[in-house]
């Protein structure tokens, strides 16, 4: 029914339970900004910590690129440093930046506001979640200063290499890495339980599950995945820690190390890979699902159009979440596992492309004939569709065993996963930060700087990762410090590598502009309108901007409609917030609603 206000009812169901008991308002500086139980402050703490450690990972990627682009020009980068940079870049970006920023940052800020709750259900546990995360980050940072430096065994931490003599960081680095991961998982579980229970049990009146913004759906499902996937990493990390410290043999077979017989026997390196990727593949969707959700809201809001196929979008999120647990071994086609597994996992991998494709079509169809406003968040949202489709299509190559085997461990894989789960989610993170910046800070960012940031980042990442596909097709293996004289690698590869490095440096420097824009606007920016994008969701309808402790003033909002009532025919404004009852919607004079069919 295109001509009716979607799903709106004039009555609200009765309240189902007593109101949330909030911890008392904090008055001291420490209570308000340091040991604070307010989800919004915790969100900002998470975001700042994640961004800080993410900048370290960004710097590490430049170290890598300098060596690859201009080999032997930088005496500071030796093979060990290079491998350590590769490993720590990957681990920090995937776990400590993307997971923490999407779930700890956006999850904490947006879930209570968007579902109409005053806070997370257990604020104290939520606060502890952040402090344990911070501890995990500090332990991770400590590994840089451990004797021998951080681990250099790759972010996947494959045994036996990562704990064998000769690998960088085999002394203290790997131990601190594993301890840090364990802490991260404990901290995350505390937060994750909060997010899930808040979504399930603490919504405001009228906010049914099928009226939640897709942002909340994405973050919710990603949290469920994380709660079920991180246990595998926790177990794997614990077992590897025992292998390395007290000499068990879970993952380590008996072998010769630097000419000496090792003390281990009978362990299975494959077992680690299975455990790791049982975590590792859902992890891709832990990062991607919040991005899917957020980008849906960005597109609908800035194209002034209801999201195409809302129910299908929700079911696609659920289907992707469920399927993501049965595709993990497509990371292991060349690991030596039973080849029949490859057949099974190739099939499931291609099936998961179906709900993903549904989502992409729906984004594009939402844009179709929309009243598109090319604001900074919208630019990033459109940029996301491009990079995600790109990375998704190369995923179809790599999902098939026969195509994957020659491409395994080449730069094609690097290009694929950076496009699909690094650049694409980061695009959404940038878009989301710009989108909610006026709500979080109460001030407007500088639009011009934002647009420069978008174009430099978007074009820059293409300049980085497009050539990598070609390098990968040539068969250039990844994670190598130097290639020397190799017959199958043509000379042009070196030229491309130098080009990629320059592009990477440009993109990295552009991020300084982004951070400067955020800080400068927070201090000196113009005061923002409480609802600058004319959005419908509840976080834009708060009585204060930025929202205060308790979010919604004395009365919680009541929800009467779905979150996508944009450009409703006959309505005076081109958006109707979720908490406006149908009888209060201003209609254009003389508008006659179409008869209900």
């Amino acid at each position: 029914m295109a001509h009716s206000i979607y799903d709106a009812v004039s009555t609200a169901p009765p309240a189902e339970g007593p109101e949330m008991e909030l911890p008392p308002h904090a008055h001291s500086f420490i209570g308000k900004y340091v040991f604070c139980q307010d989800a919004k402050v915790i969100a900002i703490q998470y975001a700042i910590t994640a961004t800080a450690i993410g900048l370290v990972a960004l710097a590490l990627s430049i170290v890598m690129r300098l060596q690859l682009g201009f080999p032997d020009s930088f005496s500071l980068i030796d093979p060990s440093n290079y491998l350590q940079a590769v490993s720590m870049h990957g681990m920090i970006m995937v776990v400590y930046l993307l997971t923490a920023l999407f779930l700890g940052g956006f999850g904490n800020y947006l879930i209570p506001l968007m579902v109409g709750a005053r806070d997370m259900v257990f604020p104290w546990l939520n606060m502890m979640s952040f402090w344990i995360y911070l501890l995990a980050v500090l332990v991770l940072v400590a590994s840089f200063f451990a004797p021998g430096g951080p681990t250099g065994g790759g972010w996947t931490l494959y045994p036996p290499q990562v704990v064998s003599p000769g690998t960088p960081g085999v002394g203290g680095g790997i131990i601190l890495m594993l301890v840090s991961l364990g802490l991260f998982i404990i901290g995350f579980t505390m937060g994750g339980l909060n997010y899930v229970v808040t979504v399930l049990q603490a919504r405001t009146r009228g906010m049914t599950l099928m009226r939640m913004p897709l942002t909340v759906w994405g973050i919710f499902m990603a949290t469920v995945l994380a709660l079920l996937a991180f246990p595998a990493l926790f177990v794997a990390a614990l077992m590897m820690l025992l292998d390395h410290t007290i000499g068990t043999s879970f993952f380590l077979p008996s072998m010769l190390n630097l000419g000496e017989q090792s003390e281990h026997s009978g362990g299975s390196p494959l077992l680690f890979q299975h455990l790791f990727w049982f975590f590792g593949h859902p992890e891709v969707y832990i990062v991607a699902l919040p991005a899917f959700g957020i980008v849906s809201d960005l597109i609908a809001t800035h194209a002034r159009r209801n999201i195409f196929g809302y129910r299908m979008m929700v079911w696609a999120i659920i289907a992707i979440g469920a399927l993501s647990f049965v595709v993990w071994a497509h990371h292991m086609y060349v690991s030596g596992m039973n080849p029949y597994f490859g057949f099974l996992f190739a099939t499931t991998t291609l099936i998961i492309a179906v709900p993903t494709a549904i989502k992409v079509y729906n984004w594009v169809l939402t844009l179709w004939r929309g009243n598109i406003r090319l604001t900074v968040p919208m630019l990033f949202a459109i940029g996301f569709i491009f990079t995600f489709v790109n990375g998704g299509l190369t995923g179809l190559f790599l999902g098939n065993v026969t195509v994957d085997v020659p491409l395994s461990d080449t730069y094609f894989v690097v290009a694929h996963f950076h496009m699909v789960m690094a650049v694409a989610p980061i695009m959404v993170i940038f878009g989301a930060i710009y989108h909610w910046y006026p709500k979080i800070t109460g001030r407007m960012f500088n639009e011009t700087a934002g647009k420069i940031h978008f174009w430099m980042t978007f074009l820059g990442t293409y300049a980085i990762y497009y050539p990598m596909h070609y390098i990968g097709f040539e068969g250039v293996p990844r994670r190598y410090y130097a290639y020397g004289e190799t017959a199958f690698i043509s000379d042009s590869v070196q030229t491309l590598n130098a080009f990629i490095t320059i592009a990477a440096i440009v993109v990295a420097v552009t991020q300084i502009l982004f951070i400067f824009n955020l800080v400068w606007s927070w201090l000196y920016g113009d005061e923002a309108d409480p609802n600058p994008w004319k959005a419908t969701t509840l976080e834009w309808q708060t009585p204060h901007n930025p929202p205060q402790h308790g979010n919604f003033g004395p009365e919680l909002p009541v929800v009467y409609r779905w979150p996508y009532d944009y450009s409703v025919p006959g309505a005076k404004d081109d958006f109707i917030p979720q908490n406006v009852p149908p009888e209060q919607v201003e209609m254009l004079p003389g508008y006659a609603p179409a008869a209900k069919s």
Partner: protein
Amino acid sequence: MNQVPATSALQPGVSGLTSDFASDQSAFKKVPWGKAMMWIFLLSDTFVFACFLISYMTARASTTVDWPNASIVFGLHVGETNVPLLLIAIMTFVLISSSGTMALAVKYGYEKNRSKTATLLVLTALLGATFVGMQAFEWTKLISEGVRPWGNPWGAPQFGAAFFMITGFHGTHVTIGVIFLIVMATKVIRGALDDQRPGFLTGRKGRYEMVETLGLYWHFVDLVWVFIFAFFYLW
């Protein structure tokens, strides 16, 4: 504000199920937040123990050397005869009994019978501590017989590794449970749950639901033990 009665007749089939689940404020009607959170945590913890046990099964199924014979290794000498699984039978009996006392504590908690609730909580804690004590005894016995995480006199080195890791992890769960049982018993004795006194750390008001939430955890630890028992001692 107009208020409508609860949803009219549900549609049959899956759509009715989802619309009921997705309707208004809470997906699980009348379930307190703490209880919902405990259930979800236990689901996550199930995955932890499942990963442990599957890893153990993989190691055991793929080892090329003999696996130690459970009925001999875990036997206990009574006089001259070796009684297989004697200690473990007692341990299991103790832990399962503690589930019973816990369930009674929950019942009396909801009846606001302070003395009986506190007594049963203390009894549960004692049974839990007894279990951990017997586990310590079993560890000592195995260690004195030469079982180490990196090897043992009878066969595959993964035996000691998996045994100590998994029973140790489970024992840690029991120990944490015992600590919380003692804390909860103290709260009950002081009347903190009747007065809804705020907690020391979390600042949340005390309620007798908390006894049930703790009970969920305790029953879960019990249930996990059944699986560990089956996979280590009976296989």
